[in-house]
Structures are given as C-alpha cells and as structure tokens.
C-alpha cells in the first residue's frame, strides 16, 4: 500500500469513528453500539500491548532473560496469587498480594501528605496583612496595600468557614457556627461555579480540535484538496 493510501484510510477511519460516537447524542443506536464495542476491544488490546511493551518487557523479561537476573522469575508465583481469587479454598492468597499493595500505598501516604499539604499549610500560615510582597509585583493591577491585606483576611475567613462546614463531630448549633458554615457553603458554590465556568473552555477546545479534524483534515484536504 502506498503511503498516501494508508494516510487516507487512517483519516477515513477517524471520520467514521468520530461520527459513529457522536451519533449517541441523537440517541443510542446500532452504529454507536458497534463503535462502542470496537472501542472496548481496541482498548483492551491496547492495554495488553502497553503492559507488555512498556512494562513487562523492559522491566521484567529483558532483565530476566537477557541481563540474567533469574530471580525475577519469582514475580510469576507472586502474580499467580492474584488469580487465586478464583479458587474456593485458597482465595485468601489473593488477599496476601493485595495486602502488599495496600500496605505500600498506605506507607507512601506519609510522604505524599507532607509533600502535598505542608506547602499549603505554609502558604496559609504566612498570609500577611503588613509588608505585602505581592503589592509591588508585576501583574498586581490596582492592588493597594489595603486591598491586598483585605484579600488575605478574606482568604483566612473563607478557609476557616469552609473547614467549619466540614466538621462532623458536633452538631452545628447555636448562633455563630451555622452561619459560618453557611457562608462556607456559599463560598464553596462560588468555587464550584468558577470550576465549571473555567472547564467549559477546556471542553470546547477539545470539540474545536475534533471539528478542525473533520473540517480541515477530511473535507478541505482530502475531499477538496485545499491546503
């Protein structure tokens, strides 16, 4: 097959699968079902290939068979334990290997917690109301020392009220706590609205990418031979 023919088929397959998947927007139908199953099959095949190409071959097979680290063979009985789940008497052995994974994940949490949250604690704890470094920074349009301090106070207020909203160990009664936590809930809604609004852009960008493929790569280049 010529290079161009391959390229043309690749584009045609791309167009077919794009339209096939989009057809679910109208309603569930046979074309979508076909592409859905095709997709699941390809994805399974891809996972198998990726597991071999990217992990098992370089990190296991090559080390064992070519570099001669014969003890890598012990990975097989260890991995076999996963499959013992299907044995009636010995399904407990699968828990042994899960235990290894659970333990390892749990053990890494200490470092992850320190690395993720300590900088955040640091930021929150060092919000200043005087001598604000950010006032003189480029990009701080119209930021006066007063408004910068106000922003930092607001930061603490929001942080505290949202955290209060998530305290579970006592009934949220009285005068202060319910209104603080209500304010927390409202600021959460502002945050979620903001997240929604800013995500729209990302999703539209994806659609633009796809439409560009249909319009440019397929219609303009392949059908109309425009460049």
């Amino acid at each position, binding site marked *: 097959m010529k290079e161009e023919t391959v390229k043309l088929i690749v584009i045609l397959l791309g167009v077919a699968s794009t339209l096939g998947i989009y057809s679910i927007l109208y309603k569930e139908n046979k074309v979508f079902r076909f592409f859905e199953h095709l997709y699941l099959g390809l994805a399974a095949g891809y996972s198998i290939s990726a597991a071999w190409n990217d992990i098992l071959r370089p990190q296991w097979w090559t080390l064992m068979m070519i570099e001669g680290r014969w003890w890598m063979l012990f990975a097989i009985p260890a991995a076999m334990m996963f499959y013992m789940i299907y044995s009636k008497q010995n399904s407990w052995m699968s828990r042994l290997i899960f235990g290894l994974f659970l333990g390892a994940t749990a053990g890494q949490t200490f470092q992850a917690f320190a690395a993720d949250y300590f900088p955040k604690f640091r930021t929150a704890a060092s919000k200043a109301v005087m001598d604000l470094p950010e006032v003189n920074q480029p990009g701080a349009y119209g930021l006066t020392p007063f408004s910068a301090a106000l922003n930092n106070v607001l930061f603490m207020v929001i942080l505290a009220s949202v955290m209060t909203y998530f305290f579970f160990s006592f009934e949220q009664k009285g005068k202060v706590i319910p209104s603080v936590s209500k304010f927390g809930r409202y600021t959460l809604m502002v945050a979620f609205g903001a997240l929604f609004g800013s*995500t729209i852009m990302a999703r539209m960008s994806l659609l633009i990418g796809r439409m560009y493929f249909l319009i440019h790569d397929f219609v303009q280049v392949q059908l109309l031979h425009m460049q």
Partner: protein
Amino acid sequence: MRIPQLDRRVLYLLLALVVSIPLLVNVPLPPPAITPPTKSFYETIETVSTDPKTKDKLVIISCNFGSGTLAENLSQLEATLNHIVSKRMKFAIFAFNDPQGRDLGGSTAQRIADKAGYKYGEDWVNWGFRPPQGIQSLLKAMVNDLHGALGTDVKGTKLSTIPVMANYKKADDVGLIIEFAAADTVKYWVQFFQRAGTTPIATLFCPTSVMANEAYPMLETGQLQGMLVGLKGANEFETVMKRPGFATRASASLSYSHLLIILLIILGNVGMIQDRKRQQGATK
C-alpha cells in the same frame, strides 16, 4: 413571546454550528487581555534565558498529554518551543504519563527544531517515555544522575554518549522545567525534583484549562513560576510574542461557544420564569 424549553438535541446542533463556522470563515474577534499567569510565564522564560547562571542550563519539556487534549496542549507546546528556540536554549523532550506524549512532543519539536536550525543530539534530545508507575523513584534517581537514571534516549542511544547531554548530569544542570499536561503530573516535578538540588528549579506549567484551577494555589506558594491556561493561555502567549497561530484562530470558536452557552442559560431562565408566572396565573 413565550420561550419554550429546548430539546437537548437542538442545543447540540447549535453548538456544533457555532464551533465550526469560525473554523471555516474568518470571524472577527478582539485581542485577548494578557492575564498575570501568562505574563509571569513569559517573564520567567525571559529571566532564565538571560540570567548568566541559568541561560546555558537544560530546559526539560515534559509532554504528558495525548491526542485527546491536542488542541490545548499542542498549541501551548508550539508557542513555547518557538520561544525556547528563539532564545537558543537546549532542551530535552520527556514523557511519563502517556506514550503519545513522546510522539506528539517529539514530532512537534522536530518540526520546530528543523526550522530553527537545531540539530538532534547537539541542541536537543528526546528522552522518550517512561511508565508512570515508576516515576517517583525515577525522578528521585534523576536528581543526582540524569544519565544513569534515564539510560537511553528515544532512539536507544546511551545519554552519556549524546553530545548535548555531556554537560547536563544532574538536577543542578537543569535551568527550567516546562510541563505540558492533561493531568496533575506537574506535582511529581514539584514533589521530587524541583527542590531536590541545591537551588530550586524554575517550573512552568501548561495545563489544559480544567487542570489550571488546581494549580492556582501552586502559583501562590511559589511552587510554579508561571502558567499558560489552556488554549486561552496559548492565544495570549501568541499575542505577547506577536506570532499568531492555531490558538488565535481557534479562540474565535471558543469565544462564540461561550457566548452561546450564556445566551442559552439566559433563555432557559426567562422560560422558567414565564412558566412559573403562568402556573401562578392558573392557580389563581
């Protein structure tokens, strides 16, 4: 006039039209405002590329995205690489989240490098893809020994024999990390690499716009020095550099699709209020 509630299929059709038309014909659009993250992104590259301490160091271009987020990440990558090569900085392509990142990053870099007269192996290198599962330990190992930890480049050549890598052996030889990502992969650089050497390495982030939200606090904490937010950031960056590209064209589609959504929300609310009034009228 009574406004009916629209069927979801009508919404879908309207959206498809609004997105495609600006891609077919030129639709006028005002230039974007340059936001602070973009500004500091640009300024960080300026500083790193002129500061005598960092200008000869390596730039790591970490491409952790696939074809799914091509419109956003690729336009960011193109705009940024154009800037990096215009500063004559040496760079390395790297990927650890999606093998597609290695190919997309590699081919884009090749195209831009060819245009700029960069030679593979002398001015830039592609480290290739490493599986995400082992990335934490890999980055930890890379801190002291880039050559040993990474082994070979994408073509299987030992890094220690590639000329461009001769002077870049550990984290201290890296001047800038730029992460292009569809996920929060920048945290690995921040957690395990950025501050592991003697001086912190300037780190820039080019996320899809959705990932940007989680990254804003990192701009505040100083873990990130700048950020291009999605296609919008790329468009702003193209505007700053006065080099319009794909991002500029696509942002017309972007603008009008947002306008459509806002109109639809307004219509939906007006319709709802009308319905409510009518119901009240009926009960009277």
